């Protein structure tokens, strides 16, 4: 089976994101870039299929600026077979990103396309469903497991109270929420191998994409409302007394119970 994992490079989740001086974007100083966490889970899900069946091919693709090449290199080091970089501006509309990815899908002909359910920068969750729509393929969201079954693949979708299990006859798009195992770290041989691999580049025009799809525009950005200055209680051997004070405060001051 052939997998294509679509990834995005985003600020690492441990980075303290700050609003930039223009007041409508994130300050770029001091940012460490990583593969978006949900995309890492998607890579892990695909690589687990490759662990089980070495004939599996796992390709990876991203649409983004030149720095995104590092994210592809990281994916290769984790064990992906090949990588493609589509050069695109950072503010490309999600619908245009999906069209560009659809162009790459048409060339690589994967059976299963996996995307993280959303990128942890804009948190839109648009590109995956839009890619499925552009391809005319069905999709399954909130994926936590993908298991080959007969000629098809079982896709587990996390919902309230459990999982829906869907049987897909490829091609299909899966939007990954989580993998059962933590995404693997690149091995040293993996890193060495990844360094030697060519990463072909494509441009939007070559994929038949003329940017201009409808999109939202960020006009202002601010940190979430500051919190703090809360009341601190120490138990000091009187849990019952403190518990009653806190419950009373929640009832009378905060009015939430």
């Amino acid at each position: 089976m052939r997998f294509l994992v679509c990834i995005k490079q985003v600020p690492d989740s441990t980075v303290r994101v700050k609003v930039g001086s223009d007041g409508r974007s994130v300050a770029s100083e001091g940012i460490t870039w990583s593969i978006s966490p949900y995309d890492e889970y998607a890579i892990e899900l695909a690589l687990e299929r490759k662990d089980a069946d070495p004939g599996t091919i796992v390709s990876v693709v991203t649409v983004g600026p030149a720095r995104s090449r590092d994210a592809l290199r990281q994916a290769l080091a984790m064990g992906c077979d090949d990588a493609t970089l589509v050069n695109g501006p950072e503010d490309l509309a999600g619908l245009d990103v999906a069209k560009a990815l659809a162009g790459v899908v048409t060339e690589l002909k994967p059976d299963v396309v996996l995307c993280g359910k959303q990128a942890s920068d804009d948190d839109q969750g648009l590109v995956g469903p839009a890619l499925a729509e552009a391809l005319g393929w069905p999709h399954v969201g909130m994926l936590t497991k993908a298991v080959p079954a007969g000629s098809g693949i079982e896709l587990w979708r996390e919902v309230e109270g459990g999982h829906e299990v869907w049987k897909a006859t490829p091609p299909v798009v899966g939007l990954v929420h989580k993998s059962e195992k933590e995404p693997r770290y690149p091995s040293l041989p993996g890193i060495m191998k990844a360094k030697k691999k060519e990463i072909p580049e494509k441009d939007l025009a070559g994929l038949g994409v003329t940017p201009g799809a409808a999109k939202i525009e960020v006009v202002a950005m601010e940190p979430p409302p500051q919190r703090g200055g809360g009341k601190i209680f120490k138990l000091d051997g009187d849990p019952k007394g403190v518990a009653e004070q806190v419950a009373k405060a929640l009832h009378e001051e905060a009015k939430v119970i």
Partner: protein
Amino acid sequence: MKILVIAEWQKDTLRRVSLEIATKAASFGDVEVIAVRSRGGGPGEDQGRYTPVAWSSAVAEKAKASGAQLVLVGATLNGRDLAARTAAKLGWAYAADCTEVTPKDGAVEAKRPMYAGKVRATVKVPLPAIVSVRAGAWTLPAGASAPSVTEIAPAADDPRLAFERFEPTASSGKRVSLAEARAIVSAGRGMKGPENWKLVEDLADALGAATGASRAVTDAGWRPNEEQVGQTGKTVTPDLYVALGISGAIQHLAGMTSSKVIVAVNKDPDADIFKIADYGIVGDLFEFVPAFTEAVKKIKGNG
């Protein structure tokens, strides 16, 4: 402006978030509330099983036929999925998980969290557009009446994808869902082991709350993944968030920092969770929580 609200059913009643949106949207213009209902939904399938292809096709057709400029839907699991695919089908702008939506100068201005809640953005959404709105973003006025709902049938499904079965999570029970809960009791590694969760559940029951967990806890398999609050789990905005034995990693804080009131219990006085807590209790949670559960019951009992 003509607005289409896509409602979701939960058994025989509309989901709270659908009611919130339908009620608020009436102040923006001419609202029609629709719901997709599949035939032959089995037990527990309130409105039939959601399938992206069939539902988005039906909603897109309806949106075009109705002349709507704005489609609003709850930012639920299915709502977000449906909204994104429908926006792609129509080629409309899409804004996900918004906490404020205001029509302005022939467009819509919306506020939404980005970077996993680490910043709040104001976005301009050109019309026509689809916007998914977070549960609790709009307070439901007391005595708000249920709107009349136009039911539409899903279009044909893609034969390449078929529902096989439902696998329930072992520990999932009767509690309210995290995303829509007005109170949440969340617990972390400070609980020491899954066998101590009765403490969490007793407090949640006393508060009428949902139960959540830190990533450390779901990764360790102490609790199911669906309870995880934080960057790679759920983002929640309840009125009351109680954090038990959670130190407050930045990824966890991102998922709950917009809660109205935060109570934190931790034995480490320097834990980051105290920086955002409205009420912080420094001490042994195994001593505090049972006493707190009793105190809550007493207050609730007195009405």
